[in-house]
């Protein structure tokens, strides 16, 4: 089968790859671009472990084809830290121990970053609904929610 040639932008860098028509963006990120931050939990849009943004919009990369990335802008968890300097959400997640096994964490970080960019002052209910498509089997969510609320407060103060 002939491969599809795709030119796209990932975390601000121009990227090219060849992929099969059936390959998902998640497969491409992990297996062709060596960006293994996004995880495959379910492959059916239910768990959010594969969350990335596509032209700024939060999506499940397991439900996007690699071919659809042509000409778009993708952001993954790998683009969150600035060199050695962690994003405030990443710092808070460590501080609050808002992760255990860490499988859900990249997706939750990407999702909450997208939330705070849209809404710097969310209520707890808004955070919980926003994250309804991000499943965590370890933490019971509470520490995640508190880490997000506290980051939002810090970021509002800093701006």
């Amino acid at each position, binding site marked *: 089968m002939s491969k599809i040639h795709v030119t796209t932008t990932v975390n601000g860098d121009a990227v090219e790859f060849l992929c099969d028509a059936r390959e998902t963006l998640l497969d491409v990120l992990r297996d062709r671009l060596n960006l293994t931050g996004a995880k495959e939990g379910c492959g059916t849009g239910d768990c959010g472990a594969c969350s990335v943004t596509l032209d700024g919009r939060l999506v499940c990369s397991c439900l996007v*084809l690699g071919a659809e990335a042509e000409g778009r802008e993708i952001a993954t968890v790998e683009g969150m830290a600035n060199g050695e300097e962690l994003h405030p959400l990443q710092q808070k997640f460590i501080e609050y121990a808002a992760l255990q096994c860490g499988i859900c964490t990249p997706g939750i970080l990407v999702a909450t970053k997208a939330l705070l960019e849209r809404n710097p002052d969310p209520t707890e209910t808004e955070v919980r609904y926003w994250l309804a498509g991000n499943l965590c089997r370890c933490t019971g969510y509470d520490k995640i929610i508190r880490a997000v609320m506290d980051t939002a407060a810090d970021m509002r103060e800093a701006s």
Partner: protein
Amino acid sequence: MQYHSPGSFEDAVAIAGAASGTTRFLAGGTDVLVQLRADIVTPDTLIDVKKIEGVRSITREADGDWRIGIAVSGAEMSEHPELGADWPGLVEAMDLVGSTQIQGRATLTGNLCNASPAADSVPAMFAAGVIASVTGPQGTRQVPVTEIPTGPGKTSLKPGELISALHVPARGARGGDAYLRFIPRTEMDIAVVGCAVNLRLDGDTISEARVSLGAVAPTALLVPEAAEALIGTTLDEAALEALATAAADACKPIDDKRGTVKFRTHVAGVLAKRAARIAYDRARARA
């Protein structure tokens, strides 16, 4: 599987018309990719519609009708400043589909054409009287959305045809709509029953109504008997009871792990009453 991303409806129709085997259109992909990955449906031809000119916009036409492009996501509908003021029930129904991530991709047209009996936006579209532009080798025709789904996973679209736009009627004065669904959780679940009500008032009396049910038959249903129970009333208790009875009578549900026939039939009546009250209050609030 061949992947195509045509730039015009003409090209899309030409590709679909020439294709053999299974063809799917790719809008948000939230059904297509799930079915592909689960080996339920592997299309021979996949036609991505998102690069077609004009498919990403929501426009209010000169006559007040809304035109919703076939690649507009649920999130874009919710974020639109005016669509939700005219058609809150329709926008809320679409907003119930999936998570934030799913909302970033899922489209109204995809929800309709996937033809799940439990699709949330479909009863709201039936009640609103949405019309689809269907484009094929013979040109474009207008089809009420009530005629698109014909059974689980089946539509009346012919090979080589696709929907090229959805048209929501002008809201007009004293109108309101609402959609409610029952799920055992608060998010991320499939409707056990869904119900949409759209009505118009003359003074405080209901002059026009459309009632639609989801997940209680092989396709969403438009229930004229339920609408008749409302028309000419001020939504008093007797009208609400007649509405609930008509809604329950129209149900032809299945028993499955999500709900029994008895439960679904009962809940259809309850949701119809609640949705009617919300639609009525919304209509009264509109000049």
